[in-house]
């Protein structure tokens, strides 16, 4: 029953093991624990008295208080323009707890009274209509378990030297949730889009009145007006009481605090789709409407701050996602890209969602560069760093999705490296 590292089937260089192995290694680990506690009849301190009672709302363990959104960046002179990031290195699975969902606001979080808030659909429609929350919860509801990623996520990787920061600080402008709400197509059909209507312009009810143009095609395909996040009403930071959610597309276009939708014959060319969120090229030209988020993966563990204290078998874990659909495959290298082996994917492989991957690694205690590379169901492959830069302006940091590497040192600490 007990496995020794000698039984492990190598899958690639420097100790990377067959993707089925880490399951056995995990089982062996817990067996060891059972044996150690079997003999004695002792109670831990917390089992000697009844514990605390129930309460109206839960909170994480005080021992996990360090699991907080990180790298809060604020635009100078403002209190509400900036971003906070999901602490990816401390999380597992594919759902981001709502309290840790990343934030990106352009003028803070509005304090909206849901009884006074309405969504108005107007413009090139036969019947301009308004909907309040009470009306929207009576519509046939849908659920989307999907990621949301800011197109500026990982943008710091365009810097000449690798920044030394945690996984979440670098890559934490991505989160995934179960978003519940009403298909936007149902509301648009009710308003009756005129044949000339080809786009819509969505406005938020924040102080910046954040505004983005959305092709009607996407609105009628899989867009929703979301009311729920992970089973509860949206958090204020995520658009309470209602937001647009456009699966797989850059986060900024999923306008929060959704207030108006104007159906138009073309895009409005708002500030946040021209001045910002457009992708500058090396030749000085720029791309507008670069909507889908490219296929991407990142190893969340090990990563900076998570120390490997002794040699032996470890689980490499990470997340992969693609705005085009499902993740088909994730490959891992622990020798700087010389050899690769497939990671195991957790059972929930959903379209346009985070997919959790894992691999087993028998670390010999030596310095190693570990990397992951994702492929999606359309055949798109996560680019290496060099090819991501092809044709890009040095000033562009949007849509960075290249293969990312951590260097595990002999001291068991991970640092960020470029390969």
């Amino acid at each position: 029953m007990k496995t020794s590292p000698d039984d492990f089937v190598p899958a690639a260089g420097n100790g990377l093991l067959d993707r089925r192995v880490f399951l056995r290694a995990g089982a062996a680990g817990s067996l060891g624990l059972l044996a150690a506690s079997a003999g004695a009849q002792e109670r831990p301190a917390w089992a000697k008295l009844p514990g605390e009672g129930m309460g109206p709302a839960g909170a994480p363990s005080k021992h996990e208080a360090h699991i907080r959104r990180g790298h809060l960046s604020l635009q100078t002179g403002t209190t509400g323009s900036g971003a906070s990031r999901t602490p990816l290195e401390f999380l597992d699975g594919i759902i981001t707890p709502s309290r840790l969902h990343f934030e990106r606001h352009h003028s803070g979080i509005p304090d909206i009274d849901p009884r006074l808030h309405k969504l108005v659909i107007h413009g090139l429609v036969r019947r301009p209509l308004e909907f309040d929350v009470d009306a929207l919860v009576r519509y046939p509801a849908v659920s989307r378990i999907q990621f949301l990623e800011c197109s500026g996520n990982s943008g710091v990787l365009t810097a000449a030297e690798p920044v030394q920061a945690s996984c979440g600080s670098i890559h934490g402008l991505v989160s995934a949730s179960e978003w519940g709400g009403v298909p936007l197509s149902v509301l648009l059909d009710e308003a009756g889009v005129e044949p000339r209507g080809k786009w819509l312009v969505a406005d938020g009810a924040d102080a910046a009145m954040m505004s983005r143009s959305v092709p009607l095609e996407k609105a009628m395909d899989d867009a929703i007006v979301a009311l729920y996040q992970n089973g509860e009403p949206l958090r204020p930071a995520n658009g309470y009481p209602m937001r647009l959610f456009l699966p797989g597309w850059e986060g900024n276009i999923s306008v929060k605090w959704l207030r108006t939708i104007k159906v138009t014959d073309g895009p409005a060319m708002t500030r946040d789709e021209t001045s910002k969120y457009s992708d500058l090229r090396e030749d000085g030209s720029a791309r507008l409407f670069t909507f889908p988020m490219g296929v991407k993966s990142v190893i969340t563990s090990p990563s900076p701050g998570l120390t490997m204290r002794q040699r032996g078998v470890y689980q490499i874990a990470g997340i992969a996602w693609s705005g085009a659909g499902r993740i088909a495959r994730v490959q891992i290298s622990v020798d700087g890209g010389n050899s690769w082996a497939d990671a195991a994917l957790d059972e929930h492989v959903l379209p346009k969602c985070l997919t959790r991957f894992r691999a087993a690694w028998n670390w010999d205690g030596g310095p190693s560069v570990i990397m992951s590379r994702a492929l999606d169901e359309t055949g798109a492959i996560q680019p290496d760093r060099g090819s991501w830069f092809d044709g890009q302006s040095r000033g562009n940091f949007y849509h960075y999705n290249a293969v990312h590497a951590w260097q595990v040192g002999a001291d068991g600490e991970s640092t960020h490296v470029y390969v």
Partner: protein
Amino acid sequence: MSMSSISGSAILLCIATTAIAESPGLGEPVSQSEIEQLDFVVMPDGSGLPAGSGTAMEGQALFATHCIACHGEDGTGGINDRLAGGHGSLATDAPAKTVGSYWPYATTLFDYIRRAMPYQSPGTLTPDEIYALTAYVLFINEIVDENAELDAEALPAVRMPNADGFTWDYQP
């Protein structure tokens, strides 16, 4: 097949048919005057622009009062975004994307100032003042001259230096 699984699939069938039921039709009609109150969209062809006008010189005084603290003298950058200059820098290693060097449409300036600026008190400027500030920001970018007066006709006619600098990634 047992009884319970038969009734189970019957229930599933019901759920499936209600899920594709038509909209309950709960949207309330909205009047034109209500729509005007909350329609902030300005299109590149100028539709959505309100009545009113303002000159670059009027805008200069307004800029000094409402904007200079964050955007600097002549919009050359303070603690927040630089609004002027950077012309010819886009293809270099240090591109400076400003209203003048980068933005494809002048209408976006009116649209954005009306929505979001000044940062601490958006919604406090009149349409005349927003036209004047728009004219001033274009003036410091050498796109219009100091006597330029902008209104709903003149603004969409302003041609931005980088108007041809963009291609669409999304293909309708």
